[in-house]
């Protein structure tokens, strides 16, 4: 009997029937949803006969546009799970006042951990990476990123991490240590299960992907800009993408190191962060937040870039204070590395250290404030149109500054001593993440959707989304500021103070509104797809855009531009439109060399997933096989000679002619008709 048990242990590691979530009906429901969802998707694709299309068009694509869209899809799926988890926690807190509620403490612990981990690593990062992937190469007049294959590898590694977190719903339990995973709580002596291991390996996969993405984007922006596009002629979105990418390159390694050292503690009985034998938990806090603070600027800078684009476009005006905005962005990027200690002012440092980091934190408020004023001044003397992206942006400004205010409060150590680790802190970071990051991402999604798919999104449902997200955020998080000042800690499964009830009920209602906001986005998508022939925008410029991505058809051809543009001005495309150079046939066309599809990135992602899964469950053969397979794929790829395909010049010329023919046959429409069926994507030049 022992021998067979031994063999099973070799094959399956620590996996057993007890890994299934039978401990709670809520958990079992979550697992069932995941399994059912995966199954339904597979059945649907089979029934529609789309596997081949999926494989050749998407899964093996190295086109930055396709990769960008896939990133956003991953993000929206994970956003759904993250929002549901948030709603579950809010409703638990609304009912568990001197009562156990419906979630056990352990389950609640998993929920806040997955919620944070998913929202940061598998919703926010993929969303911004997807938007940058899609728009940035177009904005700089490039055909693709510098390393298309690496781009796809990053995508599939991120997807592998997301898949690992989804699998944790079905097999085993996730960590209860929060998204920050502080030891010694996450050490083996306190958490012997698979939870922290899921967290560690999901983050490792994702952080490797992100580091590679940062490298890729930075080199692309340095090297692939169209002729005439100097640094100070790049769109602000590209600037923020550049700064975010540099942050990615320098900020992800501390996380990878911190999680790997924790893994060494857990797997090999080392003592980097344990209580005893020389371990020091404070090192983890420092390493993690050395990553963690730049991380939140990675999250917010691309959102700021979106707002810059949106305010300028929908005010029909040049972006105010471009140079200031560029310097402000760079200041924020640099300063973000000097403030990490403000995440643990209460850990017992000397007051001088606390004060130094507090002062540095306040400094970041200066360039951020400048950006806000500059966006307001962009509207000043403009002609503002209240489209959905702009409505999200207005909501952002009004709500984000409250988050900034509470950030300044938290940057003051003695004030922080009172509200650290309370729901005041939770309210603050949601205050900057939801109106800041999420509204920026959603605005970007609404803004660039017509470019990517050739039709606009339904405006009415977009407005409903604005209303629900804004009101939901206010109701769900403003009460938390008050509760935090009353001493309510974060991550609390049960509340013992009755007087918190009204606030928690309001917060619960807000969470439901946020859920409504999420649903409204999907309703909008559904209706828009159904009505896509009523809102077509194939000619490429539905909003009167100012930057180069609008100088292409919608969706753009694989190679982006028929001929590479020459840039004369900061608002490159607007300049071309004003000088009648936007829709001109080129004197001659060249063959275009584009990278071929490749299965290597997908193989690496899948291999990475199995390596991580094997590590989590101590299935050593699987971990080893995954690792070897990933590297084998890399080596095998290096033997592939035929990595590009040639698109003949006449094909390019024909495609260009077709587009120009459609342009010539259309009436340029004024902004008044922007949201009507008549807007096919050709803009009148006068506002």
């Amino acid at each position, binding site marked *: 009997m022992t021998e067979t048990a031994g063999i099973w242990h070799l094959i399956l590691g620590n996996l057993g029937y007890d890994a299934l979530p039978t401990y709670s009906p809520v958990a079992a429901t979550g697992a069932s949803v995941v399994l059912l969802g995966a199954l339904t998707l597979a059945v649907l694709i089979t029934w529609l006969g789309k596997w081949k299309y999926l494989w050749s068009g998407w899964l093996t694509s190295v086109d930055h546009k396709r990769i960008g869209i896939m990133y956003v899809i991953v993000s929206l799926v994970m956003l759904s799970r993250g929002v549901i988890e948030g709603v579950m926690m809010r409703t638990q807190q609304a009912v568990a006042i001197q009562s156990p509620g419906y979630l056990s403490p352990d389950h609640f612990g998993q929920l806040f951990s997955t919620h944070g981990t998913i929202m940061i690593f598998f919703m926010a990062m993929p969303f911004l990476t997807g938007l940058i992937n899609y728009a940035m190469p177009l904005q700089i007049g490039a055909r693709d990123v510098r390393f298309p294959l690496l781009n796809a590898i990053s995508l599939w590694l991120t997807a592998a991490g997301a898949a690992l977190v989804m699998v944790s719903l079905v097999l085993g339990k996730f960590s209860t240590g929060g998204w920050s995973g502080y030891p010694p709580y996450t050490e083996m002596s306190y958490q012997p299960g698979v939870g922290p291991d899921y967290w560690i390996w999901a983050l490792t996969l994702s952080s490797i992907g992100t580091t590679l993405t940062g490298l890729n984007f930075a080199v692309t922006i340095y090297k692939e800009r169209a002729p005439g596009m100097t640094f100070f002629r790049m769109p602000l979105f590209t600037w923020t993408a550049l700064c975010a990418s540099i942050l990615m390159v320098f900020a992800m390694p501390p996380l990878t190191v911190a999680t790997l050292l924790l893994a060494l503690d857990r797997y090999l009985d080392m003592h980097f962060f344990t209580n005893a034998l020389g371990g020091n938990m404070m090192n983890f806090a420092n390493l993690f937040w050395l990553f963690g603070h730049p991380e939140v600027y990675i999250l917010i800078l691309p959102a700021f870039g979106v707002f810059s684009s949106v305010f300028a476009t929908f005010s029909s005006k040049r972006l105010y204070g471009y140079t200031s905005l560029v310097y402000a962005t760079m200041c924020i990027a640099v300063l973000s590395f000097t403030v990490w200690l403000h995440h643990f002012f209460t850990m017992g440092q000397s007051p001088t250290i606390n004060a130094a980091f507090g002062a540095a934190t306040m*400094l970041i408020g200066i360039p951020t404030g400048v950006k806000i004023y500059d966006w307001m001044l962009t509207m000043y003397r403009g002609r503002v149109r209240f489209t959905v992206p702009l409505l999200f942006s*207005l909501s952002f400004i009004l709500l984000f500054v409250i988050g900034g205010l509470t950030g300044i409060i938290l*940057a003051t150590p003695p004030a922080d001593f009172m509200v650290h680790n309370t729901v005041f802190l939770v309210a603050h970071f949601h205050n900057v993440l939801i109106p800041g990051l999420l509204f920026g991402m959603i605005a970007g999604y609404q803004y660039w959707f017509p470019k990517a798919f050739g039709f606009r999104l339904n405006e009415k449902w977009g407005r409903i989304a604005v209303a629900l997200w804004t009101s939901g955020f206010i109701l769900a998080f403003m009460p938390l500021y008050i509760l935090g000042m009353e001493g309510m800690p974060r991550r609390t499964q049960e509340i013992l103070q*009755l007087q918190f009830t009204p606030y928690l009920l309001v917060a619960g209602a807000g969470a439901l509104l946020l859920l409504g906001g999420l649903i409204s986005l999907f309703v909008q998508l559904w209706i828009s797809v159904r009505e896509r022939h009523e809102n077509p925008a194939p000619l490429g410029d539905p909003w009167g855009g100012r930057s180069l991505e609008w100088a292409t058809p919608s969706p753009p051809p694989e190679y982006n531009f028929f001929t590479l543009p020459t840039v004369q001005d900061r608002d490159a495309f607007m300049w071309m439109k004003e000088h009648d150079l936007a829709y001109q046939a080129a004197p001659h066309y060249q063959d275009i060399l584009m990278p071929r599809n490749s299965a290597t990135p997908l193989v690496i992602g899948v291999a990475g997933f199995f390596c991580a899964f094997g590590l989590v469950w101590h299935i050593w053969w699987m971990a080893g096989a995954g690792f070897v397979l990933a590297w084998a794929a890399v080596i095998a790829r290096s033997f592939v000679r035929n990595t590009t395909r040639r698109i003949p010049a006449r094909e390019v010329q024909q495609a260009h002619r077709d587009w120009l023919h459609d342009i010539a046959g259309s009436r340029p429409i004024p*902004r008044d008709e922007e949201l009507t069926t008549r807007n096919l994507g050709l803009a009148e030049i006068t*506002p």
Partner: protein
Amino acid sequence: MKAPDRPDCCSLDGCATARRTGSHPRSPEHKRYPIPALRRLGRAFTPHKSLLYLLAARATTGCTMQGEGFLSPEGPIAAAERQLFFEVTALTLIVVVPVLVLTPWLAWRYRRGNEKAVYRPKWEFSWPLEILAWGVPVVIVSILGLMLWEKTHQLDPCRPLPSGQPPLQIQVVGLDWKWLFIYPEPGIATVNELAIPVGRPVHLTLTSDTVMQSFMVPRLAGQIYAMAGMETQLYLQADHAGVFLGENTQYNGDGFQKQKFRTLALSDADFSNWVETARQSDEQLGCDQYTRLAEKGLFPQPVLYAGTPPRLFNWIVQKYQTEPTPGCPQFTQEDKHD
């Protein structure tokens, strides 16, 4: 201080209700408190009834929420931190309010369709506005920075409070999911009940015998982490008598939400009585009891111990710094360094 007999519509009785009758099967028996005020504050009531009471009281008497946070400070540290909180908020509002006021106005005035508004599509820079946009925040942040520097040093948790009396030394051990308070001078200890004399500074030295925790009594002072193998410090003082909420704010597992304790700020006479009550307690915190105490579990009612082994706190800190971990008998015999 509120008269203890008045039914308090906003009592903080959510935390650590102390049942005086019977003994909970898990916790040891405890002494009844001789002090009437504390007895009344320990009443329990059903959530349903109290919610109605609360809502009715707020609607009719205009009773304000008797807060447990730093907005209702009861000591100089909390009062100073509250003051700073408001000052920082007020200064920052200087840069925030214009945004809140001007943004809707700008969007509305310069909306497409308002022909009266000037339209300058190429206007993108103005030196005076730049100087203002950078300058005002720089000035505000400079002022805030100076305030921050001074106040952070002033409100350093390790900084002794000015007073004629020497501080009362209390050692705090964070456990899962309770707090152990050791009073080296009177030689007593308690679980989940921190009694301090009014008007005298208290010097807490903290550690943990488990994971990282964060100790906070919001009405008296800010929080400080408690970590195994290390000692952190906190000075606090209560200016008035009362019962205040204390808690752990750093998540440490399944019992985290119930890791609350009561802080009793007592007059000198009441404090002496309390110490005496503890000294007469049947419970001793010996090695076995401590080992059991350190196991994971909740403590619904506070317990007072008449005595602790010498240098218990030091042993708890030191055991993470020696290999192998010294066992229980050793600390009663060996005298580890301070």
